């Protein structure tokens, strides 16, 4: 039996990075907060790049609780969208430039989101990873963990429910 020859590594990387970049950099609020994403295969890590405007308590100082909430939610939505679109990106059905412009691409909508604050956010970069507990046809449940210096010392965790985009039913 003949097996299809694997694509050259650069082709795979270029396609995935371009798609991820389109998904993330097109959103003004993600740029406003200075959030970027590291990718290893299909695994994403959100990075909250520290800036003085993210401070909530200037006397400690500490990262604003609302910034942490937003960082966890952004990581959850991007991870869920990435996982939802991954097959279409890989098959070439979805071009990077169509991700934020195409009429056919819709994003999950947050239904609810809960944040536990475990430690105060130090004035430095933070990292977050989301786990999709269940991705159903209509609803998805996602958990997120965020840390700063040590991965095993979480500074916040969150969980939320999302309404998945419904593919438009073909006319006729």
């Amino acid at each position, binding site marked *: 039996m003949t097996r299809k020859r694997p694509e050259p590594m650069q082709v795979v990387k270029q396609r995935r990075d371009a798609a991820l970049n389109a998904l993330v950099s*097109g*959103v*003004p*609020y*993600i*740029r*406003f*907060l200075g959030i970027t994403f590291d990718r290893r295969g299909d695994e994403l890590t959100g990075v909250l790049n520290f800036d*003085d*405007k*993210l*401070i*909530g*308590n*200037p006397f400690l100082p500490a990262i*604003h*609780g*609302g*910034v942490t*909430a*937003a*960082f966890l*939610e*952004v990581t959850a939505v991007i991870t869920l969208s990435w996982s939802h679109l991954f097959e279409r990106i890989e098959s070439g059905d979805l071009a990077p430039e169509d991700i*934020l*412009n195409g009429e056919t691409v819709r*994003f999950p*909508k*947050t*239904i*609810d*989101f*809960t*944040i*536990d*604050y475990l430690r*105060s956010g130090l004035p430095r970069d933070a990292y977050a990873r989301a786990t999709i507990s269940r991705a159903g046809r209509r609803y998805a449940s996602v958990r997120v963990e965020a840390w700063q210096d040590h991965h095993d010392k979480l500074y916040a965790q969150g969980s939320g429910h999302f309404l998945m985009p419904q593919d438009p039913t073909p006319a006729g």
Partner: protein
Amino acid sequence: MNDKAKFARQFIQAIPHAKALGLDLTHIGQGEAEITMPYNADLVGDPRTGVIHGGAVSAMMDTCCGAAVMSHPAAPGGTATIDLRIDYMRAATPGQSITTRATCYHITRNVAFVRAVATDDDTDRPVATAAGSFTVEGR
């Protein structure tokens, strides 16, 4: 304005991220706070629709809940969020400012309990609601 309300207002105005969001504290006192966030293209979550990102609404609600705790007559000083749950009812209408009203409805020596509602110009249909618990800290 009493001392506590003045303290809370100064505290909010000294928060760099509240300034970055353009938050305006329009009412404070007796465990209640109201904050308005003007529409800002930098806070958009979906560039195709111009709808404000839920995260920005969360940040505003967290700030407003904290202000409500600090303004409660039984709160000695500062506070920090223990947990916050946000429910999103609908997208905020693009171009309109969003207003959050938070109430600290119960407070113990250690914990304050808060509820909040966010609306845009259509005040009958909430954009989001929040419920949270906050620490009670000395000044």
